[in-house]
């Protein structure tokens, strides 16, 4: 990995250049929360002033720019009893600025599902490769447990990654296009003083995290406690609204719907992100539902995150960003469930 130092004024020039030629997505204030603090989301911006790189977290993850909530997989032009199928993939490059380590780690996890091994998705790969990603370090956010999951730092999956050193950024470069883009403005080499300042910031961030959750035991625990009443307790609170999956940076499950235009000349096959907590998630034709009680669906979501994904990829699917618990209307919070499962284990 190459490192450079970028003055903040030069960074601003780089932003202006990007904004002039490309779509730019960045954290933007969208409202004020009940506690008086600003709420953010990753949204298109037109000027550097619109973005707020000092944000704590966003309500929604940046997932929608890679797996849109709704996306046309294909369209048809109908012609009598025949049809033509049209498929197109996104080709416009865009910059996504200000992703935190958890969200870049989330993309690395999505890459494993959507872009590797079997049936790599050209829809996803197009969006991923057309995204120029500038990540940024930040002080730990409340309610996040990324450190326990090892997703509080990231060393790949981005083009540039910034650490704020006051008047300048310490920049990690992980791609050729990141290197070229960065060199459109003035950068300088890293000095010992910069490295010292960088390590100090990194240490301050690392010290700011809550104590570790014992997540290493989770895969085994999920298996052993599959029938535990812990799931009844939390399942009884779940409203089956699916919000957790919508804001989650790694939930990728979906449903496909098709529609015919009013004049019957065309149709579309549309993928919409779904949630395994929604009641009809596993209902088959004829009406049989493989997961009727809501506690079984809540359990399934946790099982996929912390057991199934580990089995396949040797790491949990969760990045510990805490968005699901912040958005949950019923106050369901992953660390609380983990503690209950652990307590259950210790009793028996």
């Amino acid at each position: 990995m190459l490192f450079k130092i970028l003055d903040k004024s030069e960074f601003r020039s780089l932003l202006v250049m990007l904004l002039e030629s490309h779509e730019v997505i960045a954290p933007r204030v969208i409202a004020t929360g009940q506690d008086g603090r600003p709420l953010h989301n990753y949204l298109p911006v037109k000027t550097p002033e619109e973005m707020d790189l000092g944000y704590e977290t966003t309500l929604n993850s940046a997932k929608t720019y890679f797996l849109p909530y709704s996306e046309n997989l294909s369209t048809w032009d109908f012609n009598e009893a025949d049809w033509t199928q049209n498929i197109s993939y996104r080709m416009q490059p865009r910059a996504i600025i200000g992703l935190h380590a958890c969200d870049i780690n989330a993309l690395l996890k999505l890459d494993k599902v959507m872009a590797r091994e079997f049936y790599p998705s050209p829809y996803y790969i197009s969006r991923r490769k057309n995204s120029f990603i500038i990540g940024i370090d930040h002080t730990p956010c409340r309610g996040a447990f990324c450190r326990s999951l090892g997703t509080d730092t990231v060393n790949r999956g981005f083009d540039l990654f910034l650490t704020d050193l006051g008047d300048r950024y310490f920049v990690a470069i992980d791609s050729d296009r990141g290197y070229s883009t960065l060199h459109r403005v003035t950068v300088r080499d890293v000095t010992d003083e910069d490295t010292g300042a960088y390590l100090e910031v990194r240490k301050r961030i690392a010290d700011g995290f809550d104590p570790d959750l014992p997540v290493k035991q989770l895969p085994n625990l999920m298996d052993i406690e599959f029938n535990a009443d812990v799931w009844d307790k939390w399942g009884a609170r779940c409203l089956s609204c699916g919000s957790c999956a919508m804001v989650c940076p790694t939930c990728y499950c979906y449903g496909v719907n098709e529609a015919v235009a009013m004049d019957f000349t065309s149709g579309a096959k549309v993928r919409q992100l779904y949630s395994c907590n929604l009641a009809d998630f596993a209902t088959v034709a004829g009406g049989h539902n493989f997961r009727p009680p809501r506690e079984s669906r809540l359990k399934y979501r946790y099982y996929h995150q912390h057991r199934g994904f580990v089995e396949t990829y040797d790491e949990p699917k969760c990045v510990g960003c805490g968005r699901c618990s912040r958005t949950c209307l019923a106050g369901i919070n992953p660390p609380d469930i983990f503690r209950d499962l652990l307590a259950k284990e210790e009793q028996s």
Partner: protein
Amino acid sequence: MTPLLFPYDVTQEDEMKRPLDFNRRSHLMNVDRMYKAEIVSIIRLTEKEKLFHIRIIDRSERERFSFLPGQFVMVEVPGFGEAPISISGSNSQKGFIELCIREAGKVTTMLHRAAPGSRVGIRGPFGTYFPMEKMKGHNVLLIAGGLGLAPLRSPVTFVTENRSDFRQIHILYGTTDPSQLLFDYQYEQWRRVDGVNLDIIVEQADPAWTGPVGRVTSLLEKIDVALDETYAIVCGPPVMFKFVCTMLSNQGMPRDRMFVSLERRMHCGMGKCCRCNVGSTYVCMEGPVFDFWTVMNLKEAI
């Protein structure tokens, strides 16, 4: 000045330019492109089930389409939707697909309204298959309950077409009543194949029924084969295959020599949408065919 960011066009990747073939599952391809196919003929089986003979229209696509018994395809009615359907027929004729379809949901209802000559889209084949090659040289029990004969008919066809490769063949089939019997016009044909036994049972007889009455497990009790030299394929509702497989394993048959096919909701067939997950196993990728030992270890499978 050159642009900061260059557009990336996935269609220019070498793999994308190669002819579409769903059997190359690790390759990049147009995963939502369908083979255009024609419904060549439709055979009425019962009040609710029809058999569709489907032929892929493009000759080179037809050449590329090859499957193994137990695999499924996604059938697309453009504008209505897609449904996963297991292949019911022989795999010896490339690009010709037989699908036994119950009228149950949106897509299958549309298919039941279709006339011969109508066009549908096909993606696939997807999923795992019955290990017919491994079964060669052994006795084979083919056991179906209800609509389970739809996926079972593919291995049935395979063993009759390759009869000399197998030892004793027993086909056991049970339904609730005689009106539910699928493929009744073929029983005589199967029975006449040398060394193939077909036994059929119904739970409720009607006045015309002369065969045995009861569950498929009672047919199984009468079968006399050396279970240590036998494979079984069991297709039917979970409660049925659980009973049958438990009975076979109690009699000494290894659980990893019994194969079942699971039914789940699917929206992709390619290990992405998660709708078919059992525990966190993708039925579309690691199934639909599983050995019984694996099924016993899947959370919430039965």
